[in-house]
């Protein structure tokens, strides 16, 4: 990835009059951290990076930004927001378009073809973090780690994030500007995480998930970070009616986690953010990917690919599978 080109493009975009700010990735404050950056002027574009550390899906911010009551007479700022997207992130944007969560004219999409990002936890485990900020680059073999002045070659397979192993759209599916050449797509792995759970018998599965769900803190990070969870007033913490009580125990946690996953059926674009941010390390990705796979294989639908598609949950085919019906 040619960073200069990326920064130049970004600088040009933020300089545009009709652009409010640009969402990109910046170096974080320590270790392998990356911080989402809100770039408002051309100079700051120089801080942008794009590296295998850039896991965050910035499309989230397109809908996360609140709209506090405008003082009377003040016009809303409806300039565009520019957003840098990897392949998976671009699918979030597309899905948002399908769901009218955003309007096409309200965004400038800067596509960043992505050879795959790393699993931060694995990385930190194998190459312990230091307070110095480290850099990670794509290399021929996989990744090149620059940490405290030292360079380390790391094989791609060693660190590649699970979502990337399974990725089928490393190149942005929608963009206004592309930085860099499209990457060659790869054969997605079999989803071992899901298969492993499926392989267990029902009771073991239930126990497995009960254990996982009991850990849930109900912090709602998974929901907040998800680019496709953007209801004004989420039903999962609404009081009237109360679908799910606020107390934290496995019954409510299970209800919460299932409902969250279900609401994303046919919408989740498998960016893996929810799993990444979950402070309780709940393997949310397995839930999402299981549903995504069913949606794909049984119903022939893939979210976030075709902006003209009918939303999965609001459509049907007369020949949808029904072998489960008595």
């Amino acid at each position, binding site marked *: 990835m040619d960073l200069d080109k990326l920064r130049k493009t970004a600088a040009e975009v933020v300089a545009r009059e009709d652009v409010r700010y640009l969402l990109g990735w910046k170096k974080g404050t320590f270790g392998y951290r990356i911080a989402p950056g809100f770039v408002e002027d051309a100079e700051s574009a120089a801080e942008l990076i794009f590296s295998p550390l850039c896991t965050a899906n910035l499309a989230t911010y397109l809908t996360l930004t609140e709209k506090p009551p405008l003082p009377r007479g003040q016009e809303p700022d409806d300039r565009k927001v520019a957003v840098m997207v990897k392949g998976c992130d671009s699918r979030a944007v597309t899905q948002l378009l399908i769901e009218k969560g955003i309007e096409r004219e309200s965004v400038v999409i800067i596509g960043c073809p992505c050879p795959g990002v790393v699993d931060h936890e694995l990385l930190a485990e194998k190459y312990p973090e230091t307070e110095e900020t480290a850099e990670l680059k794509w290399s021929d073999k996989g990744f090149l780690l620059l940490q405290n002045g030292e360079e380390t070659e790391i094989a791609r397979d060693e660190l590649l994030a699970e979502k990337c192993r399974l990725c089928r759209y490393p190149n942005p599916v929608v963009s206004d500007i592309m930085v860099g050449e499209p990457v060659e797509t790869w054969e997605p792995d079999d989803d071992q995480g899901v298969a492993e*759970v*499926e392989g*267990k018998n*029902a*009771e*073991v*599965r*239930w*126990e*497995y*998930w*009960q254990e996982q769900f009991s850990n849930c803190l109900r912090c709602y990070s998974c929901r907040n970070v998800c680019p496709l969870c953007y209801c004004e007033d989420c039903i999962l913490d609404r009081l009237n009616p109360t*679908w799910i*009580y606020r*107390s934290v*125990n496995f*019954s*409510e946690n*299970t*209800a919460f986690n*299932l*409902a969250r*996953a*279900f609401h994303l*059926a*046919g919408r989740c674009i498998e960016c893996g953010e929810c799993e990444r941010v979950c402070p309780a390390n709940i393997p949310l990705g397995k*839930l999402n990917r*299981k*549903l995504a796979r*069913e*949606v794909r294989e*049984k*119903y022939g639908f893939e979210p976030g690919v075709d902006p003209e598609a009918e939303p*999965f*949950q*609001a*459509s*049907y*085919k*007369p020949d*949808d*599978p*029904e072998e*489960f*019906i*008595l």
Partner: protein
Amino acid sequence: MSANYEPNIVAFLCNWCSYAGADLAGTSRVQYPPNIQVIRVMCTGRVNPLYVMNALQQGADGVLVSGCHPGDCHYMEGNYYARRRLGMLKDLLEFVGVDPRRFHMSWVSASEGHKWKEVVEKTVEDAKEAGPFEGFRRRQIDW
């Protein structure tokens, strides 16, 4: 499972086909197990999949959703939407280890009083085999 365990089943029936079918079963004095309690909705399309989860959480051992056969929906398409949504839900529940015998969906038309009986029998029998569903109960919590 203890032989005399009686499962508690909540059923969501569409007003036009299955509820009418269940009524017909009554009019024809067809006998079936009493474990099933019906909540009437206008269309299976109304059945929010979260209802199914909620019922399991609130104390149901099994849930049944029943509506018109494809193409016969009083509202033309409601049952198609229901089929898709609830099919997904079934996959999800199964994936987390909820016994698939706890949740069924069926098509029962207004003229199928006998089919209704069969569906109820099957649902009850399955729920019986699956046993009491304590795993997910709110009541399990130390109140």
